[in-house]
């Protein structure tokens, strides 16, 4: 293991995903250092969400490895990665719609819960105190995300912007070390986008962040490092300025005269 490798929180090497004959990801590598914000961009169908699903254990890669804090975690299921400290949001939010906002967020803190199977069944032991702690933690998270007043509402009764905050609170309440944000800016505009940028920067003080995003302004503003995917391959990587200046990126997004002339 090299010195750099131990510094990385998460490392993906040579990740390849094939669905039948289609190669969604082809030998993709990614490194996330603690406390950094990494942006994952690329045109539609580039494989961003597929990579996200690999990083969060939803999808098992055809080839390649995943290393979390120097330990190989390839092929581990989502809940194991979550308990290890990887959290994610979903494009469709995926809130627990028949549970209150508070219960949604308490459920998000599940990885911090202690106690064996017996206390889980009977409710004896530390269960009561432990549950009260989770509840306090969830209330604090609601407060931090400015949605304390909605604790007893059902998510579907709330405006979309608030629902996004609920999803964020649920993902952050368990104090993850890595937060994967799947298109956090979708459906937001103007002032909300500025707030989101400030929020992501705030979060990165406590955890590393990887975000998939189409909103270039946001990506360029908040990311320390950007990875550009196109047709399942990494075509560029570097700081926002480096990526912006890379002709390959321009070509992927806008096409070239040569190509359109064909």
């Amino acid at each position, binding site marked *: 293991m090299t010195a750099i490798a131990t510094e990385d929180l998460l490392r993906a090497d040579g990740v390849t995903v094939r669905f039948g004959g289609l190669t969604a990801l082809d030998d993709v590598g990614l490194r996330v250092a603690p406390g950094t914000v990494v942006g994952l961009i690329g045109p539609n169908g580039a494989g961003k969400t597929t990579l996200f699903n690999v990083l969060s*254990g*939803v999808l098992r890669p055809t080839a390649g490895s995943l290393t979390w804090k120097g330990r190989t975690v390839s092929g581990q*299921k*989502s*809940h194991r990665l*979550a*308990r290890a400290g990887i959290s*994610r949001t*979903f494009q469709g939010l*995926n*809130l*627990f*719609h*028949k*549970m209150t906002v*508070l*219960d949604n967020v308490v*459920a*998000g803190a*599940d*990885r911090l*819960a202690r106690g064996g199977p017996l206390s*889980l*069944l*009977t*409710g*004896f032991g530390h*269960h*009561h105190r432990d*549950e009260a702690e*989770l*509840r*306090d933690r969830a*209330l604090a998270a*609601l*407060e*931090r*995300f*400015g*949605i*304390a*007043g*909605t*604790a*007893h509402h059902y998510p579907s009764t*709330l405006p979309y*912007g*608030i629902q996004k*905050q609920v999803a964020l609170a649920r*993902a952050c309440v*368990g104090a993850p070390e890595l937060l994967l944000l799947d298109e956090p800016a979708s459906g937001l505009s103007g*002032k*909300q986008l500025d*707030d*989101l940028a400030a*929020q992501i920067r*705030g*979060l990165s*003080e*406590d955890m590393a962040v990887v975000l998939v995003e189409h909103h270039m302004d946001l990506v360029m503003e908040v990311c320390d490092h950007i990875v550009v995917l196109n047709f399942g391959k990494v075509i560029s990587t570097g700081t926002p300025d480096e990526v912006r200046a890379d002709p390959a990126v321009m070509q992927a997004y806008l096409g070239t005269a040569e190509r359109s002339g064909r």
Partner: protein
Amino acid sequence: MTTTSTSSNAVEAPAPPARPRGWRALPSPVRHLLLAALGLAVFTGFLLVTGDLTALRMAAVGYTMLSIAGLQLLVGGSGQVSLGHGAFMMIGAYTTALLVIHMPMLPLAADLLLVVLVAVVAGIAVGAATARLHGPYLAGATLILAVGLPGLAHRYHEVLGGSNGLTIRTAGAPPFLQGVVTNSEWKALVVWTTVLLAMALLATVNSGRLGRRLRAIRDDENAAAMAGIPVGRTKVVAFVIASAAGGLAGGLQAYVLGTITPGSFTLALSLTLIAALVLGGISSMWGALWAGLAVVYLEIWASDATRALNLDRDVENNLPVVVFGVLLILILRFWPLGVHGAVQRLTAPLRKKSAPR
């Protein structure tokens, strides 16, 4: 953390909910055991003013309620639909009968503990086999269980007694209570004590972390997994708990009735249990109480009515089913959340007044 809260998103609302106080601050097992004790006291009082016949009927309400409460945890809690719940009652009933016949020295409590153990093993076997099935596929797999299991009684008729089933004699009231309570009343008390203890456990599971995990899985499996909840294992646990409740209910049924035949555990039983659960209210354990009452009393009332009207035997046999079906449709038309949903809506103003949030 120094996250800036998004002011444009902030909702003007009252102060965040404080930690619960008083009754709600008690640990949930303590709360539920106290409620169970209260329920038993009420039930004992009720037995004092009613007769033997009601005692036996209420015993039937008791074990049916427990069986349905287990199903509520599974269907309402974790979102897995089982059409084979009656099969676990059958496993419990036959296990009890075999234990009483072949190991008569065991006390009832030991029998029931062994019944729960057997039902747990059966639940693990079925639950693990069906853990990857969703919705209609799971329902189909459990349906096979409900259809197939009664056949075992015919296949192994030397041990299980074929279609005549097994007959056992269980002890009535202990000697020092002779003359104070009748045998039927004693059995009803034994059933309700067991049922309320088991339901206290189920309610604790429901209101605790395991219940929350189940509801999270029901609502969104991917999001639940990303919260660190082991989805597959938790679903099997829910299935096993439901099986144990069903098995214990079947064991109590054998204890009360003394006759165990495959004919009482057909697919119709499994379907009745789930229909009754929907009728009583799928979203709460209280629904099981209404469901248990409905299963036992609707049949009795319907057959009383047919006898009073001097109707044909064919009609008499089928009327309870018709009444049940019509009632189910009507209740769901007007109270989509079942009887418990209706009760909640009616008492909502009272509760709001007594405990402002």
